[in-house]
């Protein structure tokens, strides 16, 4: 005889686990944000902050890692397998990280601007400080790309010269200035002037560049922001203070131990010997410009404008004016003035160093060396550092292999 009551109790007991599970058949992914959620106006501050974060990542992958050893600002003293890069051999397969981060910073800013334009009214859009700041980030991302890549592609398109980034940057900085002025955002406006000054110069508009540079006070600095607590710490600090991967040893800055613009110290072991890098050989001459993972990279600064104007003066053959600008910059750092050189060649030599020291470890040196190398040996602006080295970052292997417009 089957006990009916016992079966019913047993069945009810077995069904209990199904009760109260309202969301049983849904997929949940808390912590990730759906694409459509970014179309809310309330999300725009975070959208623009994200542009800043991606630009930080792009700087960290380039200015704080690859570019210093590529351009002789630091010497590879570590165990990372980037010896080709350190020797100036820049191959597509080694550029996936750098290329990806720079392009992501550009795309996030540019697509974010389009997203905001599609949601905001024209009046709101053209007077928004967030939009102005987004244009500034887009301009800086394009400047970073333009200064460092050999050639490029936009949004999976065909190959184009690197100058397309300068063209986009000029337009974006201009929009940042105009909208920033309407939004009464002087920091964005000043930074955009500084950004536009440099890209105008690179496009040959030195007069326009000087005009913009004059808008930037000498003590102004617009920084790429790092925050170790949020997981985007300054990698250059980590590689030079935690791991000893890069050293000032064997660079031109080794010869200027007291230059406050390019500060470094010798690291000693407990035995009092000069410590060696992660490769076990190279003396550790440790950069002291970035002293924590929270240290920020200047992207636009007044002293950078002064050396830009000094270069313009030299291009015009005005040695005295060039030294005047260089010495103004040195004075800002508490340094004695330089005695103007007697020849244009010596003046360019000084400018090569002064610009390098002023913008040390800010991701600008490779472009400067490329410009000066391309001037040719007959030019007083000529700089030979890149003679046997690659001069720019190639389109990455990932982009080459995945972009159908580059397959041909």
């Amino acid at each position, binding site marked *: *005889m*089957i*006990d009916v009551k*016992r*079966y019913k109790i*047993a*069945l009810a007991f077995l069904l209990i*686990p*199904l009760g109260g599970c309202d969301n*049983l*058949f*849904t*997929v*949940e*992914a808390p*912590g*990730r*944000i*759906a*694409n459509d959620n*970014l179309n809310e106006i309330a999300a725009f*501050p*975070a*959208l623009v*902050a*994200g542009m*800043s*974060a991606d630009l*930080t990542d792009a700087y960290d992958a380039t200015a704080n890692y690859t570019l210093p050893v590529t351009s002789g600002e630091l010497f590879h003293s570590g*165990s990372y*397998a980037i010896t080709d890069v*350190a020797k100036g051999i820049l191959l597509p397969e080694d550029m996936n990280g750098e*290329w990806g981060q720079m*392009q*992501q910073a550009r*795309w*996030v800013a540019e697509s974010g601007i389009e997203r905001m334009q599609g949601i905001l009214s024209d009046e709101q859009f053209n007077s928004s400080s967030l939009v102005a700041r987004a244009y500034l980030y887009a301009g800086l991302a394009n400047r970073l790309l333009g200064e460092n890549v050999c050639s490029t592609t*936009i*949004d999976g398109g065909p190959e184009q010269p690197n100058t397309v980034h300068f063209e986009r940057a000029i337009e974006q900085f201009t929009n940042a200035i105009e909208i920033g002025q309407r939004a009464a955002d002087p920091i964005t406006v000043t930074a955009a002037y500084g950004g536009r000054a440099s890209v105008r110069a690179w496009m040959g508009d030195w007069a326009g560049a000087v005009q913009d540079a004059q808008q930037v006070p000498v003590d102004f600095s617009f920084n790429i*922001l790092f*925050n170790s*607590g*949020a*997981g*985007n*710490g300054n990698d250059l600090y980590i590689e030079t203070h*935690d*791991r000893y991967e890069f050293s000032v*040893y064997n660079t031109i800055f080794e010869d200027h131990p007291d230059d406050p613009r390019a500060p470094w110290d010798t690291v000693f072991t*407990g*035995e009092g010997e000069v410590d*060696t890098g992660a*490769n*076990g*050989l*190279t003396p550790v001459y440790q950069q002291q410009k970035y002293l924590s*993972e929270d240290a920020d990279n200047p992207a636009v600064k007044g002293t950078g404008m002064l050396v830009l104007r000094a270069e313009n003066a030299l291009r015009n053959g005005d040695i005295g004016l060039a030294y005047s600008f260089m010495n103004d910059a040195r004075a800002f750092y508490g340094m004695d003035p330089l005695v103007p050189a007697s020849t244009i060649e010596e003046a360019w030599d000084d400018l090569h160093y002064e610009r390098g020291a002023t913008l040390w470890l800010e991701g600008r040196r490779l472009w400067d060396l490329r410009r000066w190398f391309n001037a040719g040996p007959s030019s007083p602006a000529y700089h030979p550092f890149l003679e046997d080295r690659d001069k720019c970052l190639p389109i990455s292997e990932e*982009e080459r*292999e995945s*972009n159908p417009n580059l397959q041909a």
Partner: protein
Amino acid sequence: MYALTRHRSTLARFAAAVVLVTLGALPASAQETGTIRGSAVAATTMQPLIGAQISIPGTGLGTLTNSSGEYLIVGVPVGQHEVHAQMIGFGEAVATVNVTAGEAAVANFELSETAIALEELVVTGTAADVRRKEIGNSLEAVTAAEIENVPVSNSMEILQGRAPGVTVMTSSGQVGAGSTIKIRGTTSLSQDTEPLIYVDGIRIFNLPTGVGGGARTAVSPLQDIAAEDISRIEIIKGAAATTLYGTEASAGVVQIFTKRGVAGEAIWSAEVTTGFRSQPDMTSFDDPNQLFTQCGGVMRGIITSDDEDTPENELGTFTEWVDPTCPADGDWWEKGLHQNYSLSVRGGAENVTYYLSGNYSDIEGTLPTQNSRDGGLRGNFSFSPVNEVDVSLNTSYTRRSTRWVEDGNNADGFLLNVGRGYRGYMRGGIADECDGVSEDLICFTNTHIFNSELVTLSDHFITGLTTQWNPTEEFSNRFTAGWDYYKINSENTHPFGHIRSPEGFFDDDNTLHTKLSLEYSGSYRDNFGENIVSTTSIGGQLFRDQHRYTSITVSEFAGPGEPTIETGAVLDGRGELRFASTSAGVFAQEQLGWKDRLFLTAGIRVDGNSAFGEEFGLQAYPKLSAAYVLSDYDFWPTSWWETFKLRAAAGMSGKAPGAFDRFRTWSPVSANEGEPGFTPNDVGNPDIGPERTFEVEGGFDASMLNGRLGIEATAYQATTTDALVGVTLPPSLGFLSSRTTNIGEVRNRGLEFQVTGGLVRTANVDWQVRTNISLMSSEIIDLGGEQEISADNKAYFKEGFPAPAYFGKKIMNPDEVANPIIEDNAEYGPVFPTHLLGMSTTLTLWDRLTLNALAEYQGGHFLPNYTGYQNARRGVWYPCYDVQQILAEATRLQSTAPLDEAGITAAQRALCSMGRVEAEDGSTLLPDYDSDFWIEPADFLKLRSVSLTYAIPSEWLSFTRNASVTLSGANLFTWSDYTGADPEMEDFADRSGETLVGGGFFGRRDYYQVPPPRTFLLSFRVSF
């Protein structure tokens, strides 16, 4: 027409039965009854068989023999009955008895051993319990008897080398480290390839989990099933067998059954094991062949130039170093004490049985501070409230604490530092540690490696309730509800004052995975006349996974003291990953049996999964199989060839995409020093669906020579279509993650053999051997237009090549005395073994002394030896010392003449390279170093274990039922040409984020992992 009508009739009866189940009422009638009692013994030894299954077909009655090998079945209707006795490893026996009211009939059985028991019941991959003879696919089973005396501590070690087609790969020799399992190769190009794991019918979380911090290894949930508790493991391997498990099952299914109670008085079993672990010698000062684990004197290495600044006159000369913190015996390796204790009791009454166990182990590693301690409890209860119902409640809890030594590709790691000698990171010491060291020597203080603390604490709770209701002999139902709770916490601390991070850091990682399982299956069996039996089954499963991973790292403590998250001045990082997903499906299956010798099975599984794209809907996976027992024919020569079954199966199963693969998502990020922001995360593919693996297999099972010889052979081919492939999008489109897309096709083929032989079977000598051989190959058929897809660490998926294979720069003239000719992007070979060979033997003398041994060969695959690569270019790889001195001479002379004169081969020049040397004309005088050159064949043969057991005569210990003592050794010898520390190692943290949650990983590399030690154990086992 008749058949169709009959089939409808069957379905109608089945439906009616289900309705009756729901209503909870079925009629029954009282009858006059008697009892049947008796015993079961082994025919050769006449020893009682415990747990033999006794059943009376047609009545639904049955039981298991008790601890004395006896049984009693009550309530047997009067009349004549056939009583069947079955036990794994033995052939079935049948007796006919006549039961009279109120009387006890007797049926005693002598069961003969058989190599392949076609009558044994199996459940994995089937809709209900079926006999092995009925299934059309191969099935491997490992029983408790096979592992009783061998030195294994968990289910992963049990599977090593014991089943064809199953590859178990360890990641570290540190005690407490888990392994990964791969069955029949790589069927997916992007998803995990770990088999599904069931424990007593409950699906549990099946993926290894990185332990976080600096140990760069993993733990596995399978470690938490104690070997002492395991009764049997069943393995089904491919889609042809796993169809009823649906989406997720294409990588196979492993089901573990733990021990259950047996009616009778309580039987206690206790085991005490002690011993030690030790590393084989890796270095000596006279012949430091690889790594500098000895440290009690002056060590020396070659000065190389893997950068540009080594003075040419120093190149190739020796530099020397010492370590004043070296242990007194001059070697970092220690002998680790091994202790393991277990106690269990099982027993029960007629309707209630129980199995309770507890175990504790405390095992020290072979390095200072390294150890693992775990303890577990298990309670398995079964009761039958009425004859037709069996309820089982199986619950276990395991807590494990492992202290690791930092290891692997980690600047704070053990083998990286001591192995690199003067190119390590623990240079200079703290305070006065290097006082007294000559200025001519470099001072290293590697003892600081052990100052960091990395502890993993895991809690694993598994519970499952299974109700089996067989209201009639024809109608059976099984309902299972289970819950798997798996929590892992890892804390990595560098205390204040640490040599490499003086202000300290603290990293806290937490992973919690829970899985809810609900399953129902029902079968209805019906006869179509005398010869045809129909079994119709339906069922359904629902699984709900919830996962949460959090991590936080802080640094810079104000001073000494216990570091906490709060006391770190700097927040270095934090992370979180959470998801919940559901998979549900139903299945239907029809099996027709003809004359109990031909069985045809057709089934279909229909699945939904919350990871599928919106338009994808439900997915159907069909199966078809046949089993034909030729040995049941009268013409079969059963006098010497007892059983022969042909089998064939074809079926499909799938693999779901990752939980986020369908969505375009953004991640929150902290920007501008504290503002919230968004950054691109998953690019998303709204059209994504599961990949589908279709497998065909065929083979036979044979047993002959009175059970002395058993042969199983299987050939299979599995083709995965719509394979999920991570398609790289142009980075200029903004998303740097790949888009998972259903575009690929991969094919796996293989042959599997298992031969079991009773070479000698006399009253005093019993000698059995078992050999299994697996030959596997895979090929990528289609990548959907992708030229290649990186599988990490030099491993790639490429059309026409194994999935995956290593590619890179390869020396084409390795043995020529010349500069190397190097081909770019050349194939090295498969990442995973293509040839497996497992050999085990058991020799028993006078029923007292038993010798067990197991050896395993894995071959056909490659492994990047990053340990060799990194050491060689740093001048601390002994086999390169002579070569590098000549390379230095060649560099100084700007000529390869010294190399040619010394007979230095192309391979030696490349492997021992100290950096590219340019000739005056800009050409390459000496080749550059490259890690590609260190991709090596990783074939190995290992003597996994040897054990010697002595069964103590009962008169010596009169209070016991039986007692034994076992002396065993594990991982005793390795034969391999691989030049790294061990050909099985893997830096697990190469896997994404050190925490694997779905998603496959394929590019293994050996990167300074501590190799597995030898283990020597003495066990005392007693039951009373």
